[in-house]
């Protein structure tokens, strides 16, 4: 969680410094959903992510160096500098990609789950998406298909109360979005998305259910983003009081306090982690800066596969 938060803050800084040319949708404040959910997965399980996806990638094992290099549009970045924040993917880690289209990745997760089911593999897929995505047709079609075929997939909704500048209650006539699951024949679970342990437990249960062939689960983690929708968002749509109230439930601080109270960690250990995080990010930024941009020819490559020998058409 600390790595995710600091990664975002570092990326925001480096964007201001000019290292990162594109958009960033930071997930500061939402670290517990990413970490709790991905920790409950196995390495060969897969996820699909969103425009606010840096946390999901890191939680699924993404390397901050290649992420930072991708944000900096470098050739060694996860997508060779051609995807950026919205399209970062690492198929070896089961990260099928962030997505620039709201709800766009959900059918893909369902298809991955279909492949696992057809091949009798014990793997599962998890689709992350926001509260805004449950009003897209893609979500409904995919959820129906997954419910119908009892596919091993988890629908993980990070309800941060806003889709861009419009509050969730003005986008759907529901208080809890997990209610949507009922119409597709699978359970909808509502959890405190700022409690990493609650997220972990709910996802673990959903994963067991999926692996046992019992089908999908919809998990709604209630959470909040501290930053704007994008960096530079004037945030006229919400109050300082609301933000402060959510900061009082900060997922990282709560987890720290819990670790210390239970004696599972010493303050000194947490300090070491914080230091290591900074070192890792120093290295990631240095790595990105030292990496060359992709050669211009790269713009024309990678549209089609190997069977075309680089012929452009």
């Amino acid at each position, binding site marked *: 969680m600390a790595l995710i938060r600091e990664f975002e803050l570092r990326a925001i800084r480096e964007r201001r410094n000019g290292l990162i040319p594109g958009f960033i949708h930071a997930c500061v404040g939402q670290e517990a959903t990413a970490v709790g959910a991905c920790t409950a997965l196995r390495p060969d399980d897969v996820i*699909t992510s969103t425009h606010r996806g840096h946390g999901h990638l890191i939680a699924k094992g993404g390397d901050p160096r290649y992420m930072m290099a991708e944000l900096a549009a470098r050739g060694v970045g996860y997508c060779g500098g051609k995807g950026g924040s919205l399209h970062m993917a690492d198929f070896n880690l089961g990260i099928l990609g962030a997505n620039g*289209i709201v709800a766009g990745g959900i*059918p893909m997760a369902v*298809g991955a789950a279909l*492949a696992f089911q057809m091949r009798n593999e014990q793997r599962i897929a998890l689709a992350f998406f926001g509260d805004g995505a449950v009003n897209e047709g*893609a979500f409904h*079609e*995919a959820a129906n*298909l997954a419910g119908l075929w009892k596919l091993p997939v988890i629908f993980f909704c990070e309800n941060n109360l806003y889709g861009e500048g419009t509050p969730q209650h003005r986008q759907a006539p529901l208080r809890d979005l997990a209610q949507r699951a009922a119409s597709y024949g699978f359970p909808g679970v509502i959890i405190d998305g700022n409690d990493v342990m609650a997220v972990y437990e709910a996802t673990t249960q959903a994963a067991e259910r999926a692996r046992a062939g019992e089908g999908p689960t919809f998990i709604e983690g209630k959470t909040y983003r501290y930053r704007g929708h994008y960096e530079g968002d004037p945030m006229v749509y919400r109050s300082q009081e609301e933000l402060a109230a959510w900061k009082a439930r900060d997922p990282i601080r709560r987890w720290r306090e819990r670790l210390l109270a239970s004696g599972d960690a010493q303050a000194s250990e947490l300090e070491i982690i914080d230091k290591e995080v900074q070192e890792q990010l120093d290295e990631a930024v240095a790595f990105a800066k030292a990496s060359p941009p992709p050669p211009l020819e790269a713009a024309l490559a990678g549209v089609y596969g190997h069977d075309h020998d680089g012929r452009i058409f």
Partner: protein
Amino acid sequence: MSRIITFSQAIREAMVEEMRRNPDVFLMGEDVGLFGGVFGVSAGMFDEFGPERVRDTPISETAIVGAGLGAALMGMRPIVEIMFADFVTVAMDQVVNQVAKARYMSGGKADAPLTIRLANGAPGAAASQHSQSPEAWFMNIPGLKIAIPATPRDAKGLLKTAIRGVDPVLFFEHKGLYNTLGEVPDEDYAIPFGQATYHCHGSAATVIALGGVLPTVMNAAAHLADAGIEIEVVDPRTLVPLDIETLVQSVKKTHRAVIVHEAHRRGGPGAEIAALLAEQALPYLDAPILRVATANVPIPYNPDLEHAILPDANDVISAVTNLISYRL
């Protein structure tokens, strides 16, 4: 050795043979299973392969295409059917933003061997939402390959290439062709994309025929031949990649070009082909490049009106004769 089979049978044979060869290949779509497909293309496949590999889906084009992509990214080789090509609009985000770009956005890493079969064309009195030929929409989307076969032989060979490939393919099957007959080799074969084929040779004009219009064009060719005019009918077979070299070669010989397709004329595949010919063969042309295509109106229900706006043999004949009599 060869056999005579229908276009529809040829497509089925390609799917069946590939499914027997490779357990990763499967078919899914609306009514493709028990029902055998609304045009009967997958008839009998459900019996051979069962409901797992010949999957009936809900009426959810976005989920069908999107799930096809997800399965393809996990190493499967799905064939998904869009019942009428018109319905691909419901899955447009998946086709355009997800399927087409999966490889490029990931820096070239993602293989997405997904074959999307779409029944296009005006079958007669099906009206505006069940008759379109939308292939040109997708020519403007890098990352997709587009096949538009016109004969059983080409349909079978191109579909095998699509299924065996590593990239997403839109495979357009004209409804009017399903019952047409043609020879196919008995042995296993695949036809590479980007290779045009000649249906007849001549020197009066090059007539480029796309998909469902081939029988119309061959009919016109026979009439013209009776009048002593020998045209060259060339079928690119795939729009992306497009074998422009062969088209240019033919135009160098005939000095005249007509492009015939059932897609609407404005912004149709012919517009791109005409532009390429102008860029690469203008000095060889003795007359303007002409297009014979569907008028720029939605397809009407009334059969006489429908007939009036679709390209027919007379349109092709007059285009060719106009070119021949053209004087600079």
